[in-house]
């Protein structure tokens, strides 16, 4: 009996180890392009032309350093080897205005996320806990629009925004991002699972309904709020079509649009393009690393599933 169990345990551990090895390989495939991109963004043009596949720029490779120390010709003699390490990054900012695009993207994403979280929390709380006329109808209407592909909205949203005189402006980019049915749905599912007795206790203690929401419901909903915040931020940061349609002034471009422009302008100067791309993806990666531990919990607790 005990040996059998130990055998089963050992097999399970072996299975776990094998799965880990296979998955590490897979994860390496997923992350390799970024490692490559960071490495390439540190290369000089000469280095990139001579050595496209290494992850470490030649002038930092140990054997090149040794050669240099021995006085042999090495990558450290190539033109540009004495440049500052982050030369491509400063170039991307100076010539490509990547810092402007970055700031724009950050602004759009932060504003959209903040407004969506605030509005959707209120609406979702009302849908989950308060009864008012037309609640069921409104909620199902909201859900129905989630099925529509955004392409349907592209043209008429542009007409609305241009009708409001907001083409080529900050508000024009952000406004359509504020309306999100998915957030209301996700939050409502989560709120429904919070025990009602907690809220009633808060009400007995003299909290207003807003107070109950703020002091009791929201602290309990941190996983789902982080998840929704992350998804909204990601969606806003990555949105490409809408800014492309509504903007023509480059000063308002977000990073997604700006980067494709920068790429066209830079020709084949890949290290510089990659420097821009690294700067463009780092904020999101950092945010994701901070928020990821809530991710699975947030999705699973809110009961998001098919039918």
């Amino acid at each position, binding site marked *: 009996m005990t040996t059998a169990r130990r055998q089963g345990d050992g097999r399970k551990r072996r*299975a776990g180890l094998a799965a880990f090895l296979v998955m590490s390989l897979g994860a390496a495939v997923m992350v390799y392009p970024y490692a490559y991109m960071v490495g390439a963004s540190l290369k000089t043009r000469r280095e990139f032309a001579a050595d496209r596949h290494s992850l470490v720029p030649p002038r930092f490779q140990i054997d090149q350093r040794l050669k240099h120390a021995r006085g042999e010709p090495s990558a450290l003699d190539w033109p540009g080897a004495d440049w500052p390490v982050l030369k491509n990054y400063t170039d991307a900012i100076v010539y490509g205005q990547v810092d402007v695009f970055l700031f724009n993207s950050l602004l759009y994403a932060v504003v959209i996320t903040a407004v969506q979280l605030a*509005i959707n929390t209120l*609406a979702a709380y009302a849908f989950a806990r308060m009864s*008012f*006329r037309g609640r069921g109808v409104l909620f199902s209407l909201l859900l129905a629009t989630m099925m529509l*592909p955004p392409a349907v*909205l592209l043209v008429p949203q542009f007409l609305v925004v241009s009708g409001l005189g907001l083409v080529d402006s900050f508000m024009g980019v952000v406004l359509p991002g504020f309306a999100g049915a998915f957030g209301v749905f996700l939050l409502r599912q989560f709120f429904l699972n919070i025990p009602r007795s907690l809220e009633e206790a808060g009400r007995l203690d003299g909290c207003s309904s807003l107070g109950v929401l703020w002091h009791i419901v929201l602290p309990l909903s941190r996983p789902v709020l982080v998840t929704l915040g992350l998804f909204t931020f990601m969606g806003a940061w990555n949105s*490409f079509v809408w800014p492309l349609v509504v903007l023509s002034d480059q000063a308002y471009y977000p990073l997604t649009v700006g980067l494709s422009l920068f790429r066209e302008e830079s020709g084949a100067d890949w290290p510089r393009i990659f420097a821009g791309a690294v700067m463009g993806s780092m904020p999101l990666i950092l945010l994701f690393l901070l928020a*990821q531990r809530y*991710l699975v919990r947030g999705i699973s607790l809110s009961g998001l599933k098919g039918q």
Partner: protein
Amino acid sequence: MSAAEPSLKQPTSLWRRRYERKGMLYVLPALVLFAVMVAYPIVRSFYLSFFDYSILEPDAARFVGADNYLKLLTSPQNHRPFWNTLYFAAIFTPPYVLLGLGIALLLNRVRRGSVALRTMIFTPVVVSLAVSAVMWTLFYNGSFGMAHKMLEGACHFLNFLPAYALTCLPPYLVIAALLLFSLTLLGFTFFDKAPLRITVPVSCLLALGVCVNLGTFWLHESFGLLAAFLATLIPKAFVSLELVAAPAEGVLGNPRWAMPAIAAMCLWNGVGINVILYLVGLQRISPELYEAAEVDGAGRWQRFLHVTLPQLGPTTYLVVLLSMIGAFKVFGQPFIMTGGGPQDSTLTFVMRLYNLAFRYGKFQLGYASALAYALAVFIFVMSLFVRRLNRPTE
């Protein structure tokens, strides 16, 4: 829904009325935005789709009835984007879903470090499409791109496949055996008898050795005797993949392979989402079900077939639906990587819509709206179809 709020029905009418007004107040901001940015545009778009409307001369709009829809069905310029999109969905969706499931199953088994692995696999989803698309354009570059080099290697291997098939154990058999071997390592028990459990992996390894030997020595391109002999029998470039034809542009410059290349990039880019959804689904399966199945004498494979898969039914429905919708509205990746080229081979439906509405200089918003509605209807029909497929498993 109504069973959830018995306590709200109790209070006095005054209290309730105040509460009701407050409920409306809470919903109001979301509702106003929703009405202006979603509901009205939907209606407006439908209305516009019956007009010949251009934003350059809004006063010259004229009612044309169903003409836009007729034009959209009959115009050959729309057929190519439609088939392209369908082609993309067909080659993208199945591996997208299956890969998500496979990775989630494996990740679920990993005991330590699963969070780190999960994070790494999800990273491409997080990073903006513009960045990933630019990066992959470089990888697909014909003169030095890495993915291009690997594809060339694959072509080379495919060219030699018939040679392998003729001389030694068919390599696909070996690959299947290897798969079996790794599955036994993972703990699946296909062979419950002890001698088989040893002989199968060993014979797999032996076969691999034979193959490697043949492949590297006897079939070597330059000095392999067998290869020299076979080269006289087999027409050269059995599978050319047409990669050599367009060396400068690589696969993205090749009308036949640009779309699969974009699909591969999308696969890499988005598979993390499906992994997370499947992980959540897997965590929701109660361990008791597995224990019960084990008591009933079900093996690993049977437990997977009769417990895991049925329990994942709702998740699979969601994943398939989301993946399909995502596939039908693909725009950004081909837009950045190829711009619809070469020879319109990656021109998708949404890109055609975008071009009509904003790019060709005519701003045919009415016609574009008709296109949008056609897509919406098509997606709706496809989702009904998926739902129908899903029903028997529930």
